[in-house]
């Protein structure tokens, strides 16, 4: 084990240490923090955007990112809720998720085939898809009082909320993909060094395209989860914060924006840190606006640090 590996190990676990320190400090400050109901609350809040964060982890590993996940989320959510009464719960779920995949495919084609810069392409689809969602619902909130989805969204499975279970399933699935499949490893290679990956015979454009499809599907899934839980939605408000939140979780978790490395577990740690942080801020009575401020600052600091560290490597 050379020095660098040890350094890396400590850095990797630093987020965990921070998390543990935070938990200790907060439970000292506020008795309500360590109660099961509160902890479960944190997890449930985290589950919905967490699914997108997991997909975003894969995207950042591959060297891409996506601004339009929030709009895709909104579109899929309203689609889901509106279709339940027409085609039934599960077909509606399927439709919503596929819709997400389709939006992702459009992004993927623009970025991987037409070679547009990712942030402009997803900026454009962000606007366009939001327009679609708003148009579909005519700007009005919609809701559905279907009992089944309520049970799904708010029920428990072996004492754990269904949504959290879904999140963990997604987590484990993505972990497997990233660690044990050629597809996942090729994502790492593409993000690590695109040219070298191509030289090794990896079909880079295909992977770049697929990553956006995955993001789209994840947004769709998150939309379904949120739809089950809330049973209502306003296309103008859904998912407005989603791209920032999902990227924040990944970045705080320590995955480098330059690609080629990272893991869903790191992102989980990052998400927990953020989730715990906000929960704590709420419990300590800090206003929502300050929370937003802190979230933005955290992202900037972490990103700037990441860029500086990587600049040193070159």
């Amino acid at each position, binding site marked *: 084990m050379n020095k660098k590996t040890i350094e890396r190990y400590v850095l990797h676990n630093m987020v965990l240490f921070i998390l543990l320190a935070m938990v200790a400090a907060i439970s000292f400050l506020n008795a309500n923090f360590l109660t099961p109901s509160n902890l479960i609350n944190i997890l449930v809040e985290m589950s919905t955007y967490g699914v997108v964060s997991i997909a975003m982890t894969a995207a950042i590993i591959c060297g891409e*990112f996506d601004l339009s996940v929030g709009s895709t989320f909104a579109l899929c959510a309203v689609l889901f809720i509106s279709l339940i009464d027409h085609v039934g719960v599960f077909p509606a779920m399927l439709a919503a998720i596929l819709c997400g995949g389709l939006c992702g495919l459009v992004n993927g084609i*623009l970025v991987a085939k*037409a*070679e*547009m*810069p990712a*942030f*402009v*392409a997803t*900026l*454009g*689809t*962000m*606007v*366009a*898809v*939001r*327009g*679609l969602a*708003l*148009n579909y619902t*005519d*700007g009005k909130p919609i809701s559905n009082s279907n009992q089944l989805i309520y049970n799904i969204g708010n029920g428990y499975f072996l004492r754990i909320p269904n949504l959290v279970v879904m999140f963990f399933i997604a987590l484990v699935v993505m972990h497997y993909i990233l660690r044990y499949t050629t597809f996942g490893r090729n994502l790492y290679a593409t993000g690590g060094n695109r040219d070298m990956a191509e030289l090794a015979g990896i079909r880079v454009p295909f992977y770049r395209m697929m990553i956006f499809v995955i993001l789209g599907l994840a947004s769709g899934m998150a939309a379904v989860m949120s739809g089950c839980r809330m049973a209502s939605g306003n296309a103008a408000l859904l998912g407005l914060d989603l791209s*920032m939140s999902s*990227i924040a979780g990944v970045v705080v978790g320590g995955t480098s*924006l330059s690609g080629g490395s990272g893991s869903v577990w790191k992102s989980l740690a990052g998400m927990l840190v953020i989730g715990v942080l906000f929960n704590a801020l709420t419990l300590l009575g800090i*206003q*929502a*606006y*300050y*929370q*937003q*401020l802190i*979230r*933005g*600052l955290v*992202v*900037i600091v972490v*990103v*700037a640090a990441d*860029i*500086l560290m990587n*600049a040193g490597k070159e």
Partner: protein
Amino acid sequence: MKTDKKTLLNLLCNYGLLIALLLIIAAASVFSKEFFTVANMLNILRQSTVVGIMAIGVTVVIIAGHIDLSIGSTVSLAGIIAILLINNTGNDWWAMTASVLAGALVGLVNGAIIAGIKGRTCDSFIITFGMQTVVAAVALIYSGGNFLTGRGRGVHSLIGKGYVPILIFLGLAVLLELIMKKTPFGRCVYFMGANPKAAKMSGVSVRRNTALLFVIAGVCASLAAVVMCSRVSAASPTSGKGYELDAIAAVVVGGTSMQGGKGGILRTLLGVVVIGVLGNALNILNITTYPQMFIRGVIIIAAVLLDVLGSKLSSGVVSK
């Protein structure tokens, strides 16, 4: 024959968007007689001033090869500060100045961070993305989340009246165009966008200029806010939300390349006008808000797509 085809494709890439939009405008004129009147055009111009002023400021940043997503939040913040100060001090001039200074400060922070980490385009994107959240939060904090109403009298309220916004907009455009085309700073900005490494090796103060770029974008955003708030003499902490997309869309549609080193303020002016006219035309054609949003997204994509395709053609990569 091959060169003809290539020239045609090139032409299409450079002007295709313009042509498509002109067609829509033509359709609108057919639809409604009032469309192509001076009164209507002036009205469109007036309504475009807020986005227009923002677009001019962000053009400078884009020419240098960066991007600024925080200008929408800056507009919100600057508006809040202006109205707050007008209400509290009754001194309109001071309120407006403070508002502009706030915008400059936001820009300075952006610029300092990005220059400090020697960022490239993707870096400026995520940093300003983060700042967007931070500045929006500050605006919410300052205003307590409330919609603020101003006094409705005084110098400030005059700014939004009549043709004053248009004059401010055009005046600013002319000023910035002169700066970009006729001063050493402007020339350096273009060079930095074209080849940042060569700029550095030629002794250009890349860091200092980078910081300045974002200050300009911030100042323009706050000027836009001043204009916006004066019309209704009120400000909301989310008033600028989403406007940065319109501003960037205007720049992109006008033909300034995202890669940097090309384009200019006049092109952005064109882009602003075109988008404004387009919006009006779509209204006349009875296309409602939401489909318009969709179209706006498509336009952004189409504009950049054509730009990317155009540069590939001219560098000889695509040999269609």
